[in-house]
């Protein structure tokens, strides 16, 4: 598919041209950067490192009503499907994360809530030309300009964005605003490729994950887990803000006679996650919980779906209040193997 170019000052018009779909872009909401619907009057800036809250919340909201019912009633009113959405400025790691999570929500039995939203989004990515410090996407199979999961990849060429449509969905989107997009020249493509290569060189953190899937379970009784768990607060930051973490709880909630069954993000680092009603807990301490977190990402998920459930976005490292550093953990694991 041919590459296209959009003048930076036309970004607003480009968004306006997509008016049939809801456009989401990274914005400061309160004190947090997250994906939020673009308000027509607002200048959209794609000048940010990455969002604090990953765009997974668009396809897998933190809280989602599955159906409504009435106290004592027998009618179940399923939540209706949502609208078509465009996510603008998604980082390649977060797009890859969606591809990873697709495996889970579509294996064996389809998850209608996730897949409905997933099928209705178009992901317009933005290559990371200045990867932040704790990014390690190349170590886990990605890269600052990885196209996996994206419909379009944008690259910031300075005064314009290069648009590389990657899927029919991406091409359709480009057609909606064809008068704003101009064909890109060979030199633009070459420049983008060069920028991508330079960006990858800027990534300093790395870890070799070869052999982890097979090796991790052999470290079941390793002291590593104790070391990781000792400072751990047992909070949900690393899992909630992980773009591939997908565990959820289901709860019935009542307001007067109106009831809803909803699902919400849950975290394997919470004690209640595995607590049986009898009081027995198969993962009684943070040691077992952290071990599960790492094993799930780098071993169990690989066994089941053939891909690692980590895209190297670095959020868990950046946001952990006690500096539990997944790259550091994996390096220790590698050493111990």
């Amino acid at each position: 598919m041919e590459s296209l170019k959009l003048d930076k000052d036309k970004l607003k018009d480009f968004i306006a041209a997509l008016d049939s779909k809801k456009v989401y872009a990274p914005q400061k909401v309160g004190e947090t950067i997250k994906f939020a619907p673009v308000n027509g009057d607002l200048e959209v800036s794609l000048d940010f490192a990455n969002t604090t809250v990953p765009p997974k919340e668009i396809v897998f909201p933190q809280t989602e009503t599955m159906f409504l019912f009435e106290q004592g009633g027998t009618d179940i009113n399923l939540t209706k499907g949502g609208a078509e959405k465009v996510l603008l400025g998604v980082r390649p790691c977060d797009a890859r994360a969606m591809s990873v999570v697709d495996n889970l929500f579509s294996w064996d039995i389809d998850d209608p809530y996730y897949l409905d939203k997933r099928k209705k989004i178009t992901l317009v990515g933005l290559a990371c030309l200045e990867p932040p410090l704790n990014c390690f996407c190349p170590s886990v199979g990605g890269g600052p300009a990885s196209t996996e999961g994206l419909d379009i990849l944008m690259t910031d060429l300075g005064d314009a964005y290069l648009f590389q449509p990657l899927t029919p969905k991406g091409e359709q989107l480009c057609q909606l605003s064809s008068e704003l997009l101009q064909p890109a020249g060979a030199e633009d493509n070459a420049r983008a490729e060069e920028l991508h290569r330079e960006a990858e060189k800027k990534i300093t953190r790395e870890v070799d994950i070869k052999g982890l899937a097979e090796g991790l379970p052999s470290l079941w009784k390793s002291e590593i887990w104790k070391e990781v768990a000792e400072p751990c607060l047992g909070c949900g930051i690393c899992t909630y803000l992980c773009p591939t973490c997908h565990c959820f709880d289901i709860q019935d909630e009542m307001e007067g006679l109106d009831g809803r069954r909803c699902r919400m993000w849950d975290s394997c680092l919470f004690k209640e996650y595995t607590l049986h009603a009898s009081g027995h807990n198969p993962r009684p301490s943070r040691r077992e919980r952290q071990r599960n977190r790492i094993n799930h990402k780098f071993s169990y998920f690989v066994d089941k779906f053939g891909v690692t459930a980590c895209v190297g976005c670095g959020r868990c490292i950046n946001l952990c209040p006690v500096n539990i550093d997944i790259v550091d953990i994996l390096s220790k694991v590698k050493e111990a193997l």
Partner: protein
Amino acid sequence: MNEKVNPYKPYMATVQEAWYETTGDRCIKTLKVLFDDEEVRENWSHLPGQCTMIGVLGVGESMISISCSPTEGKFLRFSVMRMGKVTQAIHQLEPGDKLTVRGPYGNNFPVEEWKGKRIVTIGGGIGQAPLRPIIEYVKANRSDYEGLTVIYGARTSADLCFKNELKDLRNCDGVSCHLSIDIEEEGWPHYVGFVPSLLMEVNPSPENTIAVTCGPPIMIKFVLQNLKKLNFADEQIYTTLENRMKCGIGKCGRCNVGNLYVCKDGPVFSYATLKNVPEAFA
């Protein structure tokens, strides 16, 4: 979204009969339920060992094993111990009350593969609930199996489930039933002691036999040890696992033991599989 294929949408069912199996704080109640929708009733099929998410709207759902065999009729039976929020609400249900059912979930005991063999079930407490469908299935297809040995124990005689049915078992041809209680009681004619010891007492031969055990984790641990002493091969031993579950369909994440999801890969596992899973008996 297609309503028909939404796996989270439960079917409505009505309690037909309800009775207490045991008394006390953690008492066990059995519900016999029928789906409200005739089509659902007709299309439903399950096998011994499978589970369902049953629940009460406004309270929530719990993963409960189906404690009847499909050979018994078009109804479902659940034996539920009163434990948390949801099971407390289920215990409140009386005939005519509604509950929700999703499923069936998980794998099943390979009762078809076991044809031609003798089956030994070793249960403790509420652990007899998932074993009951095997017993009923074997009874209904009696000529297909070499025999059935039921070993079952509980803390006291009042904690034994399915008492009347167990009495009747003694009259079935080729079926033997061995009961135990943990503590001596006046008038108790059977074994006194723990289930693993009763197993040694009964001393089943491993030849052409399958052993299935279900009960509290500590019991399972010693039953497995004793089955090995009795020379049962890993492949001849089956058990069921339970963990906290929410979705039942391998999405929500919490029920995993190692790389296995109890709700999808289980709840029935052979010891040959489980012995390599470090978290299985946590």
